[in-house]
């Protein structure tokens, strides 16, 4: 206890809004992180999988050399193991059954056929190489549009077609059809792979004391993995413990139950010793991490001044061979229909979508999920409207953006925008990029023959959307209240527990800041426990840019209860009534003195004899649940503006300037937010210009290393200029909004629009991401000769 004066010194600012460097970086930047690949267990053996070399084939036989009989496992061995089923409750959805190891036929290159175990991965690969598959090749379905046609070969025969789900929303499109401007485009985004630095990996061992199978796996959602494993293996949940240690980037690829997880868990139970599988980059690229492939036929109806009358769209998503757990094969396409209108307000809308099965890896939700595709489609068609109407692209956007006085705003698909000033974001981006300066430079020709282009793109990112949204999808995972635990240690430190996972988001720092805001415990003395089903409350995990809103709210709620209990204990120790005391700077302050949280914790744990008779027996450990006032999601948004120089003869694109005006509501840690934006931007540049997993007509993926699958590197990612607006969400604890995905949403559209702005005088318009040098040169030459460029460009 000290005099009242001492507590008047404010603590170092570490609460909500402080730009603290990330605590976790100390270990991560020094190479002291502990990833699945760092785990060494006595007796551990390695698994290599035999994977299908064909996209579509009937399995006639699997020949296993006699010498390896006891080290190779196929579907025939997996007694009682259920296939992975990720259904959707949307009407008409056709479910797929993804066998853990292939049965009957294989439906994608890389599908698991057999599992080989040996003391080392190299030896396991030697065994895998000795196994001979007798396959009868079937026609591969590799083109989602052809797959929709009657008479196509079938991925799942009993469906009768290749469509997981078809949806239609029509909101009075008829009344838009007489608009004076009508612009139609066919727009497509390439298939991509997520490419986190760390791939997937799973180490499984048995804990006989607890009668548990312990699964160490790089996951964004350990509790959901436990659900899935229990369903597939028929195990009681209490017999499964999932540990997700340090994870080297997720981006959605680690929000998936992989068949490998199920297979490894089964294998550990069967063999009794620890087993390990570490995904290599070839498996990652060719067998697992597919995302993004959309196709749009989109028409915009507008007035001559650029005001939109309506949008009409047919969208197809290549969902691949199986419905991935838990998000399902239709999340992406069905989401297209609901989010295509973006941040714009217009009266008529129609969107038909198809989620199509093909002989490719299942499509998985990648940072931004469907938003990157819809932003690409809508923003490109808005620029086409601008060119058709002869007005500047920014004018079309100014005419149609949701206005601040409309907030909260319900848009045409009944998305509830919580707050924001979209026109201001655009205006600030235009000012920062210096539109007039760029236009002047554009008019004066470049000495090297390159052409200058300016591109814009605006999006909104619905984040942390909860029960009311996901219950409608009817998928295996519906988020409810998010829970967090807060516990004071006997020496006054703080432990927080969340069921979500931090793998680059900086939650070990930012959630400590949230706790600091309430309890004043130094961030350095606050530890975040996460990634372990045995030690954390249930959570659907880290996805949908939800954790800062949901776990942030839950941590605050837990800390508030903890604070109230501490105040009561402190008041007793100060011999004051609780009503006469308040909490400030980590102290309970009474009329004539104060007492630190540390002293209160010491009393509760070590000197209970000093506690009053009415002390709350719950003590200094609290689990609290949280939902925002509305769970329809926060709406963060940004305006991106980019200037490029395009070499029309080689198709090279150089980014000269990049501006991002972002509104993430209250920023809990602006440094972390900037990091999220920069990282997302790098991935968005990859989507825009470099990354593409192509397939040949037999469904063979055409890249198996990073020599063929191009990622942007340091030289390709500019130092973007970020400007923050902070319009708080009225519904969340601190006004914070989810911002984790936004950086990856806008760049493909902004860059393609910039390239199109540069090349418009040549009669060239690029409508397919990635906008590769090859595609640009092809279009430039075609425009010169007056021919149409080939439809499927390299």
């Amino acid at each position: 206890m000290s005099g009242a004066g001492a507590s008047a010194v404010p603590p170092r600012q570490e609460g909500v809004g402080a730009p603290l460097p990330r605590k976790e970086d100390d270990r991560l930047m020094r190479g002291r992180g502990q990833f699945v690949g760092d785990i060494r267990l006595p007796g551990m053996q390695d698994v290599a999988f035999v994977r299908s070399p064909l996209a579509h084939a009937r399995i006639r036989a699997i020949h296993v050399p006699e010498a390896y009989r006891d080290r190779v496992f196929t579907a025939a061995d997996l007694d009682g193991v259920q296939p992975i089923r990720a259904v959707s409750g949307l009407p008409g959805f056709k479910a797929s059954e993804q066998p853990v190891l292939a049965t009957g036929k294989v439906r994608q290159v890389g599908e698991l056929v057999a599992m080989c175990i040996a003391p080392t991965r190299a030896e396991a690969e030697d065994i895998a190489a000795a196994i001979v598959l007798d396959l009868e090749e079937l026609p591969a379905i590799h083109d989602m549009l052809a797959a929709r046609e009657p008479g196509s070969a079938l991925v799942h025969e009993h469906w009768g077609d290749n469509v997981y789900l078809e949806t239609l929303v029509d909101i009075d499109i008829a009344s838009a059809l007489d608009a004076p401007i009508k612009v139609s485009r066919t727009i497509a985004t390439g298939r991509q792979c997520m490419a986190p630095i760390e791939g997937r990996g799973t180490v499984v061992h048995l804990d006989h004391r607890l009668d548990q199978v312990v699964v160490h796996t790089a996951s964004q959602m350990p509790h959901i993995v436990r659900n899935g494993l229990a369903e597939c293996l028929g195990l009681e949940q209490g017999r499964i413990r999932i540990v997700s240690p340090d994870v080297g980037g997720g981006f959605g690829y680690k929000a998936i139950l992989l068949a490998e997880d199920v297979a490894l868990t089964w294998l550990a139970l069967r063999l009794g010793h620890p087993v390990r599988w570490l995904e290599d980059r070839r498996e990652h690229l060719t067998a697992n991490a597919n995302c993004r492939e959309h196709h749009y036929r989109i028409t915009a109806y507008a007035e001559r001044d650029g005001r939109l009358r309506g949008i009409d769209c047919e969208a197809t998503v290549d969902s691949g061979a199986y419905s991935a757990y838990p998000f399902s094969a239709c999340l992406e396409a069905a989401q297209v229909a609901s989010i295509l209108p973006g941040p714009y307000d217009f009266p008529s809308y129609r969107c038909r979508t198809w989620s199509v099965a093909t002989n490719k890896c299942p499509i998985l939700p990648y940072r931004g999920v469907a938003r990157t595709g819809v932003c690409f489609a809508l923003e490109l068609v808005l620029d086409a409207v601008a060119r058709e109407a002869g007005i500047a692209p920014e004018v079309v956007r100014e005419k149609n953006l949701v206005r601040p006085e409309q907030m909260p705003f319900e848009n045409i698909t009944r998305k509830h925008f919580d707050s924001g000033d979209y026109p201001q974001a655009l205006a600030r981006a235009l000012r920062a990029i210096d539109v007039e300066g760029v236009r002047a430079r554009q008019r004066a020709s470049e000495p090297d023959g390159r052409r200058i282009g300016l591109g814009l793109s605006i999006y909104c990112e619905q984040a942390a959307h909860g029960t009311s949204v996901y219950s409608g999808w009817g998928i295996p995972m519906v988020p409810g209240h998010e829970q967090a635990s807060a516990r004071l240690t006997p020496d006054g430190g703080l432990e927080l527990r969340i069921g979500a996972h931090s793998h680059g988001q900086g939650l070990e720092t930012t959630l400590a800041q949230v706790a600091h805001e309430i309890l004043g415990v130094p961030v350095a003395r606050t530890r975040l426990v996460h990634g372990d089903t045995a030690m954390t409350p249930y959570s659907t995990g880290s996805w949908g840019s939800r954790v800062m809103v949901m776990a942030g709210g839950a941590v605050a709620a837990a800390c508030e209860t903890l604070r109230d209990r501490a105040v009561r204990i402190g008041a007793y120790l100060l011999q004051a009534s609780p009503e006469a005391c308040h909490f400030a700077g980590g102290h309970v302050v009474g009329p004539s003195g104060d007492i630190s949280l540390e002293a209160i914790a010491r009393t509760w744990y070590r000197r209970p004899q000093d506690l009053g008779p009415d002390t709350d027996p719950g003590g200094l450990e609290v689990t609290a649940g949280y939902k925002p006032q509305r769970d329809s999601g926060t709406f963060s948004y940004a305006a991106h503006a980019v200037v490029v120089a395009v070499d029309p003869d080689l198709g090279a694109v150089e980014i000269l300037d990049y501006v991002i005006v972002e509104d993430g509501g209250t920023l809990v840690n602006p440094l972390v937010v900037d990091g999220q934006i920069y990282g997302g931007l790098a991935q968005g540049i990859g989507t825009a210009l470099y990354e593409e997993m192509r397939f040949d007509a037999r469904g063979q993926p055409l890249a198996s290393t990073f020599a063929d699958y191009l990622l942007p590197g340091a030289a390709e990612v500019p130092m973007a200029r970020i400007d923050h607006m902070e319009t708080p969400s009225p519904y969340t604890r601190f006004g914070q909004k989810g911002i984790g995905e936004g950086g990856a949403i806008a760049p493909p559209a902004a860059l393609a629009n910039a390239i199109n702005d540069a090349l418009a005088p040549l009669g060239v318009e690029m409508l397919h991401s990635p906008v590769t040098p090859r595609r640009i040169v092809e279009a430039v030459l075609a425009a010169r000769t007056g021919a149409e460029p080939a439809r499927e460009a390299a």
Partner: protein
Amino acid sequence: MKPSPFAWERPASLAALLDRLATAQGGVKLIAGGQSLGPMLALRLVEPDLILDITGIDELRQARVAGETLVLGACVTHADIEDGRVPDLTGGALQRVASAIAYRPVRNRGTIGGSLVHADPAADWVNALMALGAEVEIAGPTGRRTLPVERFVTGALEVALGPAEILMAVRVPALPPGAAWGYVKHCAKIGEFAHAIGAVRLEPGAGRGRAVIGAVEGAPVLLADARPLFGGRIGPDFAERFEPGAAQAALAAAGMADPVERHVHVTVLARAVAQAGKLPLSHVPEAA
């Protein structure tokens, strides 16, 4: 992605290496920097029984000037050249090529001999050394021989090297005074393998020159006599006289059917010519 089992030896002398090559059974691969062989082993695209590491042979790491010829041992790394640790007779041409090969970690380990023997059509040395008129020195059971690079590189990943032979050194002729050099490559991003390479070594005084169009399907397209690219004559005004149509024709004759590919390759060659002639286009980035 783990290699299949192989034996590994590191002979200490050329004689020991040649002896081992002559006697070894099964598949044998030599390794120096391992920048191409390493990934190929990991992907099991090659599954040798024996790998002979040649970096312990001192002779292969030497570089020297012999009259008007620069002799670079096969195990000289790209970084050795980039950093100027070896002599130069090309007015910095080799150094500039070396400094733009892939990424620095690759240049630290990758060797000039390894790159040539691997003979990836998009590799810098395959194209640059052919344009410079370099030769390779080969040692084998029956002694030594030399070949011009264009006769050594016979196709994509194919070279004229017998099973018991090794590439000892590269012999680069000096770039004479007044000679012009241009080298431009086009990559989708920095460090990536080139999609097109153009290289010219022109002697306007003597009225002769060589040109290479590379990063094509097979061996580079070499115009050992580049005069047709310049209206039949290579003089001080060569840059103004460059005829893209002649390059187009050469590529069509070499079997490049895709007009987009031809356009890109001719553009890159034109920029190499402009660079050699110090025309304004020369400031277009090399890895544009």
